[in-house]
């Protein structure tokens, strides 16, 4: 079935949010979400890298891996593409825009190990997306991730001063907030359904 890329884009942001329904990118999600500014920086970097790498990995998968019949190497190839792209972006930004580098650059190394990036590429292959669908899915997932981390950072700043039971402070509390957010996002599931 051919899905409109726009529908995939919307669905990736709301109904099948990469973080809240597929649990990808949790590590940096929990550790960076202390402040809104840094969350925004990381989120933007994720949107950018995710969109481009989903396009790159699409090309690599369909024009190199499939013709050569080496699909079993996809994990290694995908991770190399992602790491190389992140490294390249970091170098380019550092060279041409020091200001952007200071706001965004420090987050780039974190992204190679963000499992959401690799996850998007793998989902794209499993679901047999076309090129446009893949880009829409990558961009949508990135935006969905940005939305989730911004929301968590906002809430965490609000509850920072409040009393919480000792064992729950920190990661436990963030997870509960995320759980409630995930519950709220379930409410979006009426909009569009994919998969």
């Amino acid at each position: 079935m051919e899905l409109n890329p726009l529908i995939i884009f919307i669905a990736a942001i709301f109904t099948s949010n990469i973080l809240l329904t597929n649990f990808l990118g949790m590590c940096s999600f929990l550790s960076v979400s202390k402040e809104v500014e840094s969350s925004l920086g990381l989120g933007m970097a994720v949107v950018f890298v995710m969109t481009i790498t989903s396009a790159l990995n699409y090309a690599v998968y369909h024009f190199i891996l499939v013709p050569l019949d080496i699909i079993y190497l996809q994990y290694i190839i995908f991770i190399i593409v992602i790491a190389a792209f992140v490294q390249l972006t970091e170098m380019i930004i550092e060279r041409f825009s020091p200001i952007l580098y200071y706001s965004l650059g420090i987050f780039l190394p974190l992204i190679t190990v963000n499992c959401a990036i690799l996850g998007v590429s793998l989902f794209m292959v499993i679901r047999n997306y076309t090129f446009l669908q893949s880009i829409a899915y990558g961009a949508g997932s990135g935006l969905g991730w940005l939305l989730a981390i911004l929301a968590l950072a906002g809430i965490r700043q609000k509850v920072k001063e409040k009393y919480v039971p000792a064992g729950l402070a920190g990661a436990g509390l963030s997870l509960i907030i995320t759980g409630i957010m995930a519950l709220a996002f379930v409410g979006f599931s009426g909009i569009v359904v994919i998969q």
Partner: protein
Amino acid sequence: MKKKEIFITSAFTENSVWRQILGICSALAVTNLMMNSLVMGLGVIFTLALSGFTISLIRDYIPKRIRMMVQTLIIASYVIIVDLFLRANYPEISKALGPYVGLIITNCIIMGRAEAFAGKNSPFDSMIDGIGAGVGYTFVLLVIAFVREIFGFGTLFGFQVMGDWWTKWSIMVMAPSAFFMLAILIWIINTPKKQVG
């Protein structure tokens, strides 16, 4: 350090999931069924043990600058073995786990152990440390999966344990409950002892 000590430390006292909050992506994603969690856990133990061994073995020959890249490639090679093994022998489970087998590569626990332990210790110690961290991880997965499967499906490992009277809690099958369960587990374990007693 003695071998047993290394194992206990990395499996429980310094458990990656509840002490360092690492590797929780997959801990959340596969825990709606016990079987999936067990297979995932075994895959992670295998990858952790062998990548720890390999990285420790060649740690003096890895150039510092590209260390992360080399480690990732070693980890990815073992993950491919796990993936191919599952596809060949257990196609059903492989399908259910979907991309999460591949995502073992970016599981922060493995990179974390490689950086924190295998880079400094002997190959066999690293292997034991890897198995320990993997067992600790599997333990967390199984605890969460136990609760989610029994409430969500009324089964354990696919066997019916609750009678027909049991109303399935569909929330337990859905995503939010995974967050809540992990939060509760972390809460219980991190609560200081004197508050409990």
